């Protein structure tokens, strides 16, 4: 199996200077993800699941450890990579799907979905076509495509968000509770799209409130509960 990500001794905590306090988030985490593999992060609230994802995405700066990413430019340690390199990888190889769409005023749904393709150098017409297909797949009605998602409901916004985040197959995909406000149809579309990406070799790390949504996608589970950080198989998800 081709490794995509090797996490080694990763530690994160926060120094809150005004409280003169250090808060530990997680400590000495090690695991790896291969191409086409889906890893579920598990742990109680506050165990640091989202924090870990954000650290991997470098929204948070780790305190120690390595995040070795096998990029198309070779091996790079995301924990120490220069800001521009991280920004470049975010545009080209690493995606992060959050629970919320950061909608901007006066930007239409289809324009939002087109953006990643335009940044990757797609022709505008082809990008628009692909964007519409993706929106349709997630169940956004055609009359909303040209509308501004700032006024959409949470569920509809999330559909646009997913269409955008998943439109371009990336090497590494991180999912932070993407199913939170989705209806059943959209959830099915999401699972189908994830399966597609998985088959194309995208490595995935996810946090899900209801892991049964994506049950058959899961290859491995990483438990962040402080007492034992271990990895197990799909059968461990006993709910």
């Amino acid at each position, binding site marked *: 199996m081709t490794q995509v990500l090797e996490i080694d001794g990763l530690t994160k905590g*926060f*120094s*809150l*200077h*005004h409280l003169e306090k250090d808060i530990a988030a997680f400590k000495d985490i090690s695991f790896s993800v291969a191409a086409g593999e889906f890893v579920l992060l598990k742990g109680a609230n506050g165990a640091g699941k989202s924090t870990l994802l*954000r650290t991997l995405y*470098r*929204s*948070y*700066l*780790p*305190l*120690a450890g390595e995040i070795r990413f096998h*990029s198309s*430019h*070779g091996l*790079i*340690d995301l*924990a*120490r*990579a*220069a*800001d*521009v*390199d*991280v*920004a*470049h*990888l975010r545009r080209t190889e690493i995606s992060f799907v959050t629970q919320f769409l950061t909608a*901007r*005023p*006066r*930007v239409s749904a289809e324009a939002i979905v087109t*953006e990643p393709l*335009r940044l990757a150098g797609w022709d505008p017409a082809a990008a628009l076509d692909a964007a519409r297909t993706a929106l349709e797949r997630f169940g956004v009605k055609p009359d909303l495509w040209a509308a501004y998602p700032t006024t959409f409901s949470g569920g509809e916004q999330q559909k646009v968000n997913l269409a955008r985040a998943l439109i371009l197959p990336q090497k590494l995909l991180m999912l932070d509770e993407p199913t939170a406000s989705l209806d059943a149809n959209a959830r099915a579309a999401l699972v189908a799209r994830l399966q597609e990406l998985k088959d194309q070799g995208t490595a995935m790390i996810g946090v899900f409130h209801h892991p049964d949504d994506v049950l058959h996608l899961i290859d491995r589970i990483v438990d962040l509960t402080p007492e034992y950080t271990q990895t197990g198989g799909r059968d461990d998800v006993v709910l």
Partner: protein
Amino acid sequence: MTLTLNAPRIVETRPLLEVHGVSKSYGSVQAVRNVSAHAYPGEVLGIVGESGSGKSTLLRMMNLEEIPEAGSYTLDLPDVSGNLFELDRFARRMLCATKIGIVYQNPHLGLLMKHSSSGNVAERLLVAGERSFATLRQAATEALDASEFPLDRLDAPPIELSGGMQQRVQLAKAIALEPALLLLDEPTTGLDVSVQALVLDTLKRLQQDRQITMVIVSHDLGVIRTLADRVMVMRRGAVVETGLADQIFQDPQHPYTQQLVHAKL
């Protein structure tokens, strides 16, 4: 204690803008001390800090309006070389007119308030040597249109326009010659919140359509968060922290940055 970051390894292009070790004082007040900054092509660098942190002085240096006592400034562009702080007045003026655009907080600094809006934009091209009236008119119209300025007010003088519209004229003037670098000094401060959102949106669009490298200075974190890819935090003339925008806002390291981020409404 966090990890020290490596030099870029994937991105091989040189930064478009590089400022190195600049210092400037006014009398006994040191406005900027030993500041270095860079911005890669197409990147938006945000500089935040409170009044008097030296951020505007730094921006004026990037526009060559102020020359520091020490330090260097380079732009990685064809036919531009050497430390730009050493250029003579003439070369400086031509460089600023053709390669750098600036939008000031106060439109009076950037605009001739009683000339027509289109004329304000055309002046840029006139300085660069354009002598055809039709071309000037066309270019001014296009730049104003790109700044989402209502074209039926093309020839209205800025003094008759609202604050948001004045900023659009400034923006059109700044981008008329398609500069490689766009400098924004508190471009939305003092505008109504709704107008502010529209101006920011215009800037964002422009950045995406044209891939202009931008440096934006603001004390308003919302503005920086909306626009910047990377953020530099300044205090008392020095840089306290730099990082990716989301990192600065979600995981600020320096006590001052934490205080700044947490003070945001």
